[in-house]
């Protein structure tokens, strides 16, 4: 689905990482860990075409990301559900509409009704459906962002620190949602610092743990 070959990235100064290769096979479940500032967010952004590699080849769904136009990227995004580290919403629209936004944009608004309700209940936002995003708590924002990322039932789900602000119980619940989606064949990539969460996940699904440190990516890390 998404492949990075010998990829390098730098924000203008020194290179953050070089010679990094990674394949997100369909149906795989991967965790990305590493110290703060190692470049996890950067790596995820490469995977959904938000940044362009300064070296190497990134291919999204078989297309070379370097040759994709802005509309190609937009279309690819419809197949990738993304949870940003700092969740952003359309602050003037109620949470429910924000969560349904990807369907809206893809012209599939009619699919929303049933799924939306169920999904919002699952992430515990039923009571907040009519609130505006700035009126949500930190954890509620993260849950709304996750709901928005999965509502289109995309092929790939990329989540950057999706449980940083929620309690242990809720993070279990969110994890089980992702595991469920993975069982349905979706590819999942999650950046996380929460070792407990990763351990729990490994008990439920065959998850691979990647570790990004000092510009090198280790795969199959044992905890």
């Amino acid at each position, binding site marked *: 689905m998404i492949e990075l070959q010998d990829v390098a990235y730098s924000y203008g100064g020194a290179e953050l990482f070089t010679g990094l290769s990674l394949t997100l096979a369909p149906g795989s479940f991967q965790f990305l860990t590493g110290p703060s500032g190692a470049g996890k967010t950067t790596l995820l952004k490469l995977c959904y075409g938000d940044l362009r590699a300064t070296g190497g080849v990134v291919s999204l769904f078989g297309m070379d990301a370097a040759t994709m136009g802005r509309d190609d990227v937009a*279309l690819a995004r419809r197949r990738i559900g993304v949870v940003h580290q700092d969740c952003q919403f359309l602050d003037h629209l109620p949470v429910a509409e924000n969560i349904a936004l990807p369907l809206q*944009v*893809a012209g599939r*608004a009619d699919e929303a009704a049933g799924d939306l309700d169920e999904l919002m209940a699952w992430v515990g936002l039923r009571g907040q459906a009519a609130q505006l995003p700035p009126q949500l708590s930190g954890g509620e924002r993260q849950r709304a962002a996750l709901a928005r990322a999965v509502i289109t039932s995309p092929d790939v789900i990329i989540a950057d620190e999706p449980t940083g602000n929620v309690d242990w119980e809720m993070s279990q619940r969110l994890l089980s949602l992702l595991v469920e989606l993975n069982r349905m064949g979706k590819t999942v990539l999650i950046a996380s610092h929460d070792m407990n969460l990763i351990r729990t996940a490994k008990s439920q699904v065959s998850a691979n743990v990647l570790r990004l440190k000092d510009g090198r990516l280790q795969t199959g890390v044992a905890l």
Partner: protein
Amino acid sequence: MIGAVTEALSRALALLVGDPQADRAVPPTGFTARLTIFTAGAMAFLAVFAIALSLATGRLADRWSAELARTATLRISAPADQADAQIRAALTVLDQTPGVASARALTDDEERALLEPWFGPDLPLASLPIPQLIEIVETAEGYDPIGLRARLQAEVPGAVLDDHTRWRTPLVAAANRLRSLGWVALLLIAGATAAMITLAAQSALSANAQVIRVMRLVGARDTYIARAFVRRFTLRAALGAAIGSALGVLAVMALPDGGDAGGFLTGLGFQGAGWLVPLLIPPLAAIVAFFATRAAALRTLRSQA
């Protein structure tokens, strides 16, 4: 060629045609909204005045040109016995002069009317050795006064040509200056409006950078995002301009009417088809806003990841 134009037009229309869902992506109110409406309104108001000024001075210049420029006077002072002959000779010369539309001797009554302000109505014209006057009406191209003078000197020695030039030129120039001033003001206003709407659109866009980021994140295409902004701004500019023009027209109507008092300065208002000109302002403002916002939106979008 026609195909390309049609396509460009239909794309422009597609940008305008409402997708109520896409529209909801842009926050409906806020200061940039009010700023746009107000700017468009204020500028339209000023534009109505500038147009009124231009049209009025245009009429003024035309009238002065017509009244002052196209006539000249030929004065024939000759002993009574030769007068008739000289008049006939002069008329013949004038008939043959290119650029002279018509020429005719003034009647006694007309001469008396001319002199009345100074001498009263009872002037015994017949008994006075006053010159005979011939009124010359020029064609639009005008005649060559130097050539005409030379011929007259040869054939009608008692004739003096007074072609009003020293009167006409400065007045018509002044009226034309006023008129071009009005057009310059109009151009300035249009330019300033375009620039302000562009800047307002750009500050709205940069204030809504988060909207753009979120929309891109969930897979919206540039045109989908741009459309929402463009529609908003176009409609706002048109609305503001409509309000401003309406108020401007009301204000012009409320100005004290000059009538044709003095018959000299025309009132500052619209006449006839002139009333339709302010109707052009809102669509023009909308067009300006459309292109300004579209360029700004696409530029902003491309500058973002």
